[in-house]
């Protein structure tokens, strides 16, 4: 084995930290560079009122944005809860998906016409059922 400038020995017990440490240094260095070259000028521009902060300073459809977020979170959570009542049948996925698809469609639907609603409801029942039938029944994929 060569010795000298480049030699290195890695202790197996701590080898899981070797590479992450290097990455931390690189990340730190790059972050400092970005602070100086990008963020600082940007903040100055914000102060002068030329630009707005991301996220906070933007307009947003709050109802749909947070609604989407809440729906997805509830969907994931309830799927596991309901699924646990019927172990490994995929019913958790099936039932909660129907509710989710229905609610999310309604959330995104702007004009509640009769025709649109019918399509939404049919879709909410058919799509999850089809997915469940093909995947859980035909291919016996484990679903929540």
């Amino acid at each position, binding site marked *: *084995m060569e010795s000298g400038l*480049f030699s290195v020995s890695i202790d197996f017990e701590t080898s899981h930290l070797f590479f992450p440490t290097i*990455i931390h240094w690189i990340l730190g260095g790059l972050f400092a560079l*970005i602070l100086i070259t990008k963020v600082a000028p940007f903040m100055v521009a914000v102060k002068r009122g030329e630009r707005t902060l991301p996220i906070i300073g933007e307009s947003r459809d709050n109802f749909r944005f947070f609604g989407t977020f809440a729906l997805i979170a509830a969907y994931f959570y309830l799927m596991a809860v309901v699924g646990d009542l019927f172990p490994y049948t995929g019913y958790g996925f099936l039932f909660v998906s129907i509710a989710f698809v229905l609610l999310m469609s309604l959330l995104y639907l702007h004009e509640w016409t009769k025709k649109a609603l019918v399509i939404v409801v049919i879709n909410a029942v058919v*799509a999850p059922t089809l997915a469940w039938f093909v995947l859980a029944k035909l291919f016996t994929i484990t679903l929540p």
Partner: protein
Amino acid sequence: MEFLSVLDFTFFLLVGFGTLVGIIFGAIPGMTATMAVAVCLPLTYALGLNHGLALLLGLYVGGISGGMVPAVLLNIPGTPSSITTTFDGYPMARKGEGEKALRICVIASVIGGLISAAVLFLFAPLLADFSIKFSYVEKFLIILLALSVIASLSNSMLIGIFSGVIGVWLSLIGDYSISDGGNGHTRLMFDFMEPYLFEGFSLLPVLIGIFGISTILLEAEKGVKRDVAGQRIKIGKEGGFSLSIFKGSLTNLTRSSFIGTFVGMLPGVGGSAASVLAYTQEKNLARNSSQMGKGAPQGLIASESANNALTGGALIPLLSLGIPGDATTAVLIGAFTLQGIQVGPLFIPENHETWYVMMTALVLANFVMFFLMFFAIKYIAKVVMVPKHILYPIIVMMCVVGAYAINYGIMFDVWTLLIFGVLGYLIQKIGLEIAPLIIGFILGSQAEVYFVKSLESFGTYSVFFTKSPIAMVLWGLIAASVVFAIIMGIRSRARQKMELSQASGPHTVSGKHHGSNND
């Protein structure tokens, strides 16, 4: 030829059926080729080896190809290896050229697939001997070369590299896996996360979360306007597709196919690295690559020919070393063991019949894929016309299925979708770049293993330079890639300055995803 007797009607039917099912799996966001092969594996018990292989190889080719559909139309890579397809495919779909983009992809795919099948057939044992010249050191350099794409891929090199390193960092979360020879300790997390994050975030949920869920969040923020996902689709003649697009792309096509085959054949590197590497090389070597990332056919050609070439490539080590070249072939190996057939260096000489059957199935699957896709594209491209309030809930649902099923039923993988959906949203908001981040994530953990293991074996950093002629060639390529990125950066900055003086307003990082971002 004895093997011809095996090729009965059922055989052809199974290849066709497999390819079709594979395409469907690949085309559904969240479902992958690997999953298609995995769920059909038990069927091969009943089918016997030859018929089973016909089905599985069809699924494999179909699944990899099908990944292009959501990548182009929805900006969600259907399989990890179609990530680079989104870079140019989605911008084209936004311009209403989804159908044209898909046609380009299909042709590139079939050529990539056939080239790699030919390489597999003619040179498998030879290449296997070559591939074992790649030890940890050379594999690390290959990964580094693929990572160097980050520099030229990003709008701002500094931000791009930073995003890439964040991606690498994210990939390191979890244990330093024993199955990679690590010590099994976890890092970069708190103790309470251990039950969930022991093995870190898995790739597919991260991918569909960061592309799929974050896109939906961004849309929700804008109120999910009533328009359909693609503004206006040009179909048929209007689509502007003609074979002349491929004029001048012969080098690209050949190069990318060979890169795909070659990367596929390196065990432990294969998969997504192939298309990333082919994309890099096209970006670096093409005469004019300034449009890449904004909807250039050449990017699609590079990406899709490489990822289909993966199929033949990944079968090389499987059939001539007994070692799977990527995730899908790792599942495929089950078909052999379940039938009591060993794969190893003597597989081809000892199982001539099976070998020919596999080659036939592989070539056939590529043709079937081509015809199925080429004529179905017209209809597939209309997916973007489905109203968003119908489309989006279904995408979320299918992403859930894909995430849950990829590791055979882990609920945390579903939560990963949301975590990375939100992360992807934030990242784009604060101006970091998604593509470099995801490339960093895909390649990060392999980079670690190969880097640390090289040093453990040789005890010196200098080994990366002196290990072998292959290493030096790779360094040459890496240097070229970096130098090129810098030149490109300077050039584009000059161009930007010119544009800036005409129309003021700074460029935004991922403007292609959401033009309304802080400018």
